């Protein structure tokens, strides 16, 4: 019974989120473009599907995966668990005593990104625009690897207490270097994938992980150090998608026989 009420509430909420955007788009079409919208009916039906779908999706997550994920983040960062699985022998907990946290961070970052609806949208579009050269699944896996590595490294930063902007600056140096070498067509897509990864599914789970970790590690404040994981999750997909583009070029070069090497277009 509660679940039905929750479901209705979430669907209602997502309708309230979608409605202003829909009204704005329709108003713009009517007042500025002043043309009849082609297939108006189809678009209205589509909006209903988007709102209902998003609502069901969120209620499902809120009822199941989020509480479980948050609980697990707490359990993995609890002092009892950390002491039971520690590697260092004496003294305070060392950074490598948090190995399960890194692994969980990487796994949860990777898997939640694969289920991120906004990323699916961008992958579908990129696949269509590139004429199939960029695979829907391949792009999503590339982004997910980036998020997994990013969140894991972000956890290390919280534990070690190193300044956030050092990591970000170093990450962007890598991005600059890759940008000069990667095929031009992948660059804008790679930059975009940084922003799309962190929406509905990933953010609540990794934020819970960050706050739990900052509370558990001695000398960290949840308020000062708990933030910043999202920034890592936005930066590393850029690197991994650029790398995906570089790998694709490399593979194309390898598959060409040495005789045809000269015929390859310069990238």
């Amino acid at each position: 019974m509660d679940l039905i009420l929750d479901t209705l509430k979430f669907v209602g909420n997502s309708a309230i989120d979608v409605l202003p955007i829909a009204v704005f788009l329709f108003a713009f079409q009517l007042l500025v473009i002043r043309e009849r919208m082609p297939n108006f009916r189809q678009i209205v039906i589509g909006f209903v599907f988007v709102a209902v779908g998003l609502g069901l999706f969120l209620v499902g997550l809120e009822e199941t995966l989020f509480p479980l994920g948050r609980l697990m983040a707490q359990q993995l960062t609890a002092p009892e668990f950390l002491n039971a699985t520690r590697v260092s022998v004496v003294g305070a907990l060392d950074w490598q005593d948090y190995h399960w946290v890194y692994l969980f961070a990487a796994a949860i970052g990777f898997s939640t990104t694969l289920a991120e609806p906004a990323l699916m949208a961008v992958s579908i579009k990129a696949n269509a625009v590139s004429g199939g050269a960029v695979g829907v699944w391949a792009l999503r896996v590339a982004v997910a690897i980036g998020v997994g590595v990013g969140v894991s490294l972000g956890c290390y930063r919280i534990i070690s207490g190193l300044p956030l902007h050092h990591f970000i600056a170093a990450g962007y140096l890598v991005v600059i270097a890759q940008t000069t070498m990667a095929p031009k067509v992948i660059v804008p897509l790679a930059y975009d994938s940084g922003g799309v990864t962190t929406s509905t599914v990933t953010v609540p789970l990794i934020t819970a992980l960050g706050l739990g970790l900052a509370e558990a590690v001695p000398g960290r404040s949840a308020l000062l150090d708990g933030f910043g994981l999202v920034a890592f999750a936005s930066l590393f997909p850029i690197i991994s998608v650029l790398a995906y583009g570089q790998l694709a070029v490399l593979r194309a070069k390898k598959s060409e026989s040495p005789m045809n090497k000269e015929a390859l277009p310069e990238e």
Partner: protein
Amino acid sequence: MKNSLIALSRDALFSLRDLLPIVLVIGIFQIFVIRQPVSGFVSLIFGALLVVVGLTFFIFGLRLALFPIGEGLAHSLARKGSAFWLFAFAFVLGFGSAIAEPALLAVAAEASKVAVDAGVIAATEEARSDYASGLRLVVAFSVGVALLIGVFRILANWSLPVMIIGGYILVILATTVAPREIVGVAYDLGGVTTSTVTVPLVTALGVGLASSLKGRNAMTDGFGLIAFAAMTPILFVLLYGIILEWT
């Protein structure tokens, strides 16, 4: 009708595959690492079912509504040839979707607590809500500006890497002068502003615009709008923090 049903069931299969990794990760960690029983197995299965159905509907609606309308508007605006309306559309779309974003509300409220703890603002309810709504306005404004700049870039054919990297150099510079408690919040806000409904719309807008302009490539020129929307909030919030500290 029959075709849509086939499309729907195919999407449902894909959604199932997309969610499987999360279920596996949580299951494996629960069984082998944490080793504690999970309560409410039935409600877990039911919830997972809702997630699959929800994701399926969302993707279905995306193809029916968000993609066509985003591209349709981009084409119409390009045909109209009015740069003013194009910029106005981009700005309002960015500002409007960011101000309505629930994740932004949550982070802004959290950030106001940090500010109280750091002694930047008074520990009153009024000061906190002022700070949080100020933050939201700054972020929404910055997302509006981001889409405006992004659309301008597509029209002017400027280099995306130069603009984005340049922007992040400004971000790093601003970080060194910004008050410490705002840095983490600012960096996180860049990620939360681009919501699930906005991303498909903005992507369709960029791709539609690039494909309706002569001499532009949809792949190299159409993408990149989200990149701006992820960067400008960081910069603007850092500047907001710096200004608040000085005054």
